[in-house]
């Protein structure tokens, strides 16, 4: 019944003016639907059958995109109540928690989606690396992806300060302190970032504007280019295929009374009308419905923890007393661990080298070996280096998260966690 009503609407004058094609019934209409709709024309009318296979990408990029959309939507909702002033920010967090209907859950979704987005962006990057999908002609898209990764971190970092709780305040104090160690421009950069010498009102409003306007705007533009390039660079990376050997079509005695077009003529013993040629399948419904399914999965993935666990909110920011130990958010704990050894080497040199190495990777490693193949045996060196770096970062994060106690001293995670006594007369 709803389908019939929909068809009826699509056939009306108004319906036709909006949707050029209704629910497609033939392959021609499926093609037209994908091409003529603004939302759907991101896709080509047909995609390679490999695209549909889950193991090709594990859907990681799409999941990251969905998380960004969820973040944008919940972020816009939060903006209705949040006030970026040092004396009101924390109160608006409390309002969201206790006064606003569904305020807590919206904040939880925003928080969980942000954490998950970092996870999935990193996983997506790993997928692209391990399937060698960054090699020519996709090297520039890898660069844009790297930019998107850094923007994701930047958005998380700027969003972190906004609740104006202890965690926020001291994480930002430490983070901007790291920026201050950059050579030559460090001090100036820190001053501009904070709008002063310390984390205060000027810093809060700057981080707020970066978080809700500047960074998302750049992000949207880069995402658009990223997706556009996926198509322009020939869809998902896939292994070199041997040219399809033209099959001998056995002569078929066609009745001379009919006229046949060559449309949709596939290889085989009969001209099979309606069957796709080659390995291409129609975007509608194959890819489209899978994408919608993945969105439902992502939404569930965010909603379940958001209902079960509240986003953390510590005491209101106290510019005098840092919590002991003062820990950065988990995705910066590897960095904090490095910084605890040396702010300049750990906070500037190592991250700088990592980003530079990732940026030049597709321009150095360009031999088309192992493209589209997971963990190709032809790329042992590259895969080993990448994996070692990844595991190192992971280990540092684990140490920072579970093995660091008060005063940042090493301690076993099962030891009772006692906050260090404050010794100030």
């Amino acid at each position, binding site marked *: 019944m709803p389908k019939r009503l929909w068809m009826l609407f699509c056939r009306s004058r108004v319906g036709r003016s909006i949707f050029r094609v209704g629910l497609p019934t033939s392959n021609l209409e499926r093609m037209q639907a994908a091409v003529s709709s603004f939302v759907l024309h991101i896709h080509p009318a047909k995609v390679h059958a490999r695209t549909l296979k889950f193991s090709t990408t594990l859907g990681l990029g799409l999941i990251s995109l969905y998380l960004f959309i969820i973040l944008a939507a919940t972020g816009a909702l939060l903006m209705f109540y949040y006030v970026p002033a040092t004396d009101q920010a924390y109160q608006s967090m409390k309002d969201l928690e206790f006064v606003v209907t569904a305020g807590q859950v919206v904040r939880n979704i925003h928080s969980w989606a942000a954490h998950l987005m970092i996870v999935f962006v990193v996983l997506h990057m790993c997928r692209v690396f391990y399937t060698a999908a960054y090699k020519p002609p996709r090297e520039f898209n890898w660069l844009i992806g790297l930019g998107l990764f850094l923007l994701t971190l930047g958005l998380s970092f700027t969003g972190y300060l906004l609740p104006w709780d202890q965690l926020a305040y*001291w994480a930002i*104090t*430490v983070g901007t*302190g*790291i920026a201050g160690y950059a050579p030559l421009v460090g001090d100036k950069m820190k*001053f*501009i970032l904070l*709008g*002063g*010498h*310390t984390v*205060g*009102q*000027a810093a809060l409003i700057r981080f707020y504007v970066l978080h809700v306007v500047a960074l998302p705007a750049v992000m949207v533009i880069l995402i658009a280019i990223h997706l556009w390039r996926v198509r322009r660079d020939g869809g998902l990376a896939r292994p070199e295929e041997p040219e399809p050997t033209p099959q001998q079509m056995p002569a078929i005695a066609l009745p001379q009374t009919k006229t046949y077009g060559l449309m949709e003529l596939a290889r085989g013993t009969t001209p099979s009308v309606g069957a796709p040629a080659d390995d291409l399948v129609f975007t509608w419904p194959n890819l489209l419905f899978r994408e919608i399914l993945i969105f439902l999965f992502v939404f569930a993935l965010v909603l379940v923890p958001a209902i079960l666990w509240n986003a953390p909110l510590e005491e209101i920011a106290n*510019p*005098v*007393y*840092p*919590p*002991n*130990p*003062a820990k950065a958010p988990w995705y910066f704990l590897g960095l*904090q661990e490095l*910084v*605890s*050894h*040396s*702010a*300049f080497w*750990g906070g500037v040199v190592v991250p700088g080298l990592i980003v530079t190495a990732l940026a030049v990777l597709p321009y150095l490693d360009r031999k088309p070996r192992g493209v589209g193949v997971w963990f190709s045996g032809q790329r042992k060196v590259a895969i080993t280096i990448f994996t070692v770096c990844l595991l190192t970062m992971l280990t540092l994060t684990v140490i920072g998260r579970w093995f660091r106690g*008060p*005063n*940042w*001293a090493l301690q076993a995670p099962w030891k009772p966690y006692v906050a*260090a006594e*404050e*010794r*100030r*007369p």
Partner: protein
Amino acid sequence: MSEGTGGNLNRRDFIRLTFGWAAALFATGASAAAGARFMIPNVLYEPDRRYKALKPDDYPEGVTFIAEIRTFLIRNGDKFRAVSAVCTHLGCTVNLSADGKGFHCPCHGSQFDENGAVVSGPAPKSLPWPAVSLSRDGRLVIDASQQVPPSQALVI
């Protein structure tokens, strides 16, 4: 425009191109410079670097933490000294160590001795000692914009 003339530019095109590019570059550069300068505030609504504390006799013997300016005031009989409690590593507030003779940073584990010099940890510089002076109405003034050696004290 006479294009494809083998690199020979006539005077009119030369002037056009020169002025066109100069104007475009100037507009871009000036906008970028103004935008960057815009981000540097000219007025800071931050507390004064000079802090007027209580009278000398209001402070007990030993170390007192003045929270407003994150500074330790050290009284040794009639001698007054002050040392910043802001860690030189990344700006956390240091604690007095257990024996009271040094400072510990809770964030990244830097340790300083009683003179504020780095003992261990990632801190790159020793803790600064702001100048302590006496105001006309007999109160202590701690001036973070002036740095003195650890041994220099205000003698009342």
